[in-house]
């Protein structure tokens, strides 16, 4: 009757002021246990101040095949970067 525990993706906030970052995954029967396990697995050396857990099958991801069409539009718009514009030295920092 054994059923494998579901997989959870773990996100940890390294320190106050930073966003949560994906650190890995683990198995747990529910969210509460996933947080407890994440504490033991991913924060044994003060790596975090906050943990998020998300069931792995709830994550939707972009497909690697669409990489071209997804990101190409931004590649041609270099004027979106501040360095595109030359500002004279006399004006000072801007």
């Amino acid at each position, binding site marked *: *009757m*054994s*059923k*494998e*525990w579901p*997989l959870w993706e773990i996100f940890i906030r390294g320190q106050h002021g930073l966003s949560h970052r994906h650190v*890995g*995954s*683990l*198995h747990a*029967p*529910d969210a509460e*246990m996933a947080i407890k396990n994440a504490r*033991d*697995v991913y924060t*044994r*050396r003060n790596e975090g101040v906050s943990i998020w857990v998300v069931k792995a099958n709830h994550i939707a*991801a972009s*497909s*690697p095949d669409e990489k071209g069409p997804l990101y190409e539009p931004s590649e041609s718009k270099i004027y979106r970067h501040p360095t595109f514009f030359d500002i004279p030295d006399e004006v000072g920092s801007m």
Partner: protein
Amino acid sequence: MYAQMIKTARSGVKSREEMTDQERAFQDKVDRDIKIEPQDWMPDDYRATLIRQMGQHAHSEVVGQLPEGNWITRAPTLERKAILLAKVQDEAGHGLYLYSAAETLGESRDELVRLLHEGRMKYSSIFNYPTLNWADIGAVGWLVDGAAIVNQVALQRTSYGPYSRAMIRICKEESFHARQGYHAIMKMAFGSPEQKKMAQDAVNRLWFPAIMMFGPNDSESTHSEQSMAWKIKVKSNDELRQQFVDQTIPQIEYLGLELPDPGIKWNEERGHYDFSDPDWSEFFDVIKGNGPCNVDRLKDRVKAWDDGAWVRDGLMAHAEKKRARKVAAE
């Protein structure tokens, strides 16, 4: 190493002419050190070889807890006990990182564990040797984890993203393992004559098994080529072994202990230490299942898995009950 004699899922290296366009694009990415991620296209053999290698690596971390766990209750001081406990807990974590990395390729952890328990997957030969006394625990941390680090540092550059990231994490923690082991041995080497004798005895027994961890000589290692081309393996067995020997000799000299190999000699010309081969027939025998502890190690793992079944099932049932109640209340 922690993954030894991984049979690459295909024999020989595919030439560029033999490759399909997709395979060529894949190989180009690998050659340019662009990491392969779970959703990217990859050759079936790459996937199969990686699952085998990461699975064996994960099993080694988990089985590796047994020879050390053996000494947690008998550590000489409370501090050493706490340190050993932390190290053994790390090994469980390392096993978990690696199982997770293997799972990104679509193989479930339970399935990998089942293959191990059925004897269809292996773990590192080193864990089939016993830890007879406290000096062995020091020597294991220093030499076995030391050897593992040499391999794992190289594997940080492996082509598969999740494997590489697991290695980076593991290496950070592993350095604590080697240092605590060296520290424990240092205490004994500079202690009473009896303690020093114990330390020497541990080194005598564990040296050759430790250098066997890197696997057979390159000339005998028939499966490596494709794995190297795919950067699943980054350095050859002999390169890694040499690196380990070179870094370990100054450490042992400092301790005033000796390596049980009269063939150790600095080779000016090569810029490396010469050393003797271990008894490879012993290595192949241990791999086949005839080491001193093979039977016990597997028996203990299977027992731990079976004894834990009611906990896994119970927690799952509890989680389902809670979910059903929540749904009913809404």
